[in-house]
């Protein structure tokens, strides 16, 4: 991440969200994500164009759009996973917890702990089920065994996986089914107690019943977490999200309450997409 152009937002390095003097009152306690005038370039190709979007706290925001529209790229700016790709430049702001996280001096390690991510394909480590969930806790420096065990159990319970795996925590995570692996990845993410959870097509590699369980889980988790889901499945967006953003060719066409998007979209393009005229 080279230069983040505009920096209207405060530049102070804040250790915790609660200690930060709030630049936007809306965001002081309830962590949402505010995207302002975001441009992203892969070399000379512009993949995101002037995106401005508000993600409210403790709700589910779905980002829909055809393949290659930039929805995953947008999601990956929230925890700076695009840093891993050479030649990516950004301009504009992504404000989380009162801070523009695109700024160069952002502690990305801290950012990624607070903004967790679940990937398209379940990607548990080739370790035991327990070690997968405990991984993030050990990163935080937690050494007390009782404490770690307690938190692992809590995370697995929150991810609705505890009852299925409590008797085989020392088995390899790779022995679980795809749906279980994805819930394990969610538990792994929950264990470090993030504020925001990013889900990049979390159910697209799963069968219908496993998908239904993930969707139930998302609805359960939104009471505590701010969730952003990228999906190419419009029914899924309609089922689980409170707000929906529609993207096309790197631009945000429309973002509104999900019910509005699916019943009375303001833009012709949105209507064409959700009625299946293209994409």
């Amino acid at each position: 991440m080279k230069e983040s152009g505009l920096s209207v937002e405060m530049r102070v390095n804040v250790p915790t969200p609660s200690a930060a003097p709030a630049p936007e009152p809306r965001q002081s306690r309830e962590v949402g994500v505010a995207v302002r005038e975001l441009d992203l370039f892969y070399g000379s190709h512009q993949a995101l164009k002037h995106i401005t979007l508000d993600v409210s706290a403790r709700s589910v925001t779905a980002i829909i759009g055809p393949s290659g529209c930039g929805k995953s790229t947008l999601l990956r700016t929230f925890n700076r996973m695009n840093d891993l790709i050479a030649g990516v430049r950004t301009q504009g702001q992504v404000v989380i917890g009162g801070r523009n996280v695109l700024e160069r001096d952002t502690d990305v390690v801290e950012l990624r702990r607070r903004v967790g991510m679940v990937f398209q394909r379940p990607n548990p480590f080739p370790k035991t089920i327990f070690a997968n969930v405990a991984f993030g806790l050990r990163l935080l420096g937690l050494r007390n065994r009782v404490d770690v065990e307690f938190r692992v159990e809590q995370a697995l319970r929150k991810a609705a996986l505890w009852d299925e795996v409590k008797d085989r925590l020392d088995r390899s995570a790779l022995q679980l089914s795809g749906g279980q692996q994805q819930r394990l990845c969610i538990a792994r993410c929950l264990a470090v107690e993030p504020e925001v959870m990013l889900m990049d097509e979390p159910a697209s590699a799963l069968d219908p019943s496993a998908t239904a369980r993930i969707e139930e889980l998302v609805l359960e988790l939104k009471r505590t977490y701010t969730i952003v889901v990228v999906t190419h499945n419009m029914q899924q967006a309609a089922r689980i999200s409170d707000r929906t953003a529609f993207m096309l060719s790197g631009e945000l066409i429309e973002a509104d309450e999900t019910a509005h998007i699916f019943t009375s979209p303001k833009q012709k393009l949105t209507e064409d997409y959700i009625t299946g005229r293209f994409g």
Partner: protein
Amino acid sequence: MSPARPEIPAPLAMHGPSLRRRVSNTAMTVLCYTAAVLVILPLALILWHVVRLGLPAFTPAFFLNLPKPTGESGGGMANAIVGTGLLVAMGTLMAVPIGVGAGVFLAEHGNGRFGTMVRTTADVLAGVPSIVIGVAAYGLVVVPMGRFSGLAGGVALALIMLPTIVRSTEEVVRLVPRSYREAALALGAPRWRVIQEVVLPAAAPAVLTAVLLALARAAGETAPLLFTALGSRFWSVAIDRPMASLPVYIYDYARAPYDDWNRQAWTAALVLLLLVTVVSALVRLTTRRIPRP
């Protein structure tokens, strides 16, 4: 075929493969099998020969005694067995940390000019004749120390092992799926923790195989030891003194005009072969028993 099914219409007459195709098929299959047998043949012949000629002197005395003075028959190579173990252990201890470290560097950060330099250097080093490696170790260790030593032999063997370990480590670390790294990074792991706790454990079995291959090759090297560890006819466990080793004994005894020494050379070869096999098997067994973290 159930009789109730409607008959399949056959608009085209089908016949079996043509004679020409059948003949060339058989010929190619035979050629492949021949090539496969030719690969096994040398190893089988070597094993057969070494076992047949090595067994007569394969006695407890060979393992327990020191070599007898020239002209006397009997004696063993206890000092050379222990010496080879020490030399290989020293080489491994030096080569593994440096080699694995450099391999991880190449895989993770090796796309710049320095990475290319390191990679080319490792490849060239792999192609350097082992006698030249011996000369290098002579200049690096023997000359400054003022005498031949086991340590110099260990350095020479480390140089032999290094390129294999570096390049194999690089390759297997690159093969660790990107999704593992992403998962760890997304949890807020700094890069070094990702490498230490996710990438290296995932690559470990393959790295171990590479180390064992390098070790097996180093254990049989004679040339680099000739003017580093030199050899010794006495008990030699001090690493700053000349040290006996099996390959050098094989070299000396095989050229000697005594039947007894020639016999012992074959036995030494057999013991060397067994040592490498046993070490590989032991390492694999013990690492398999450790539960995956």
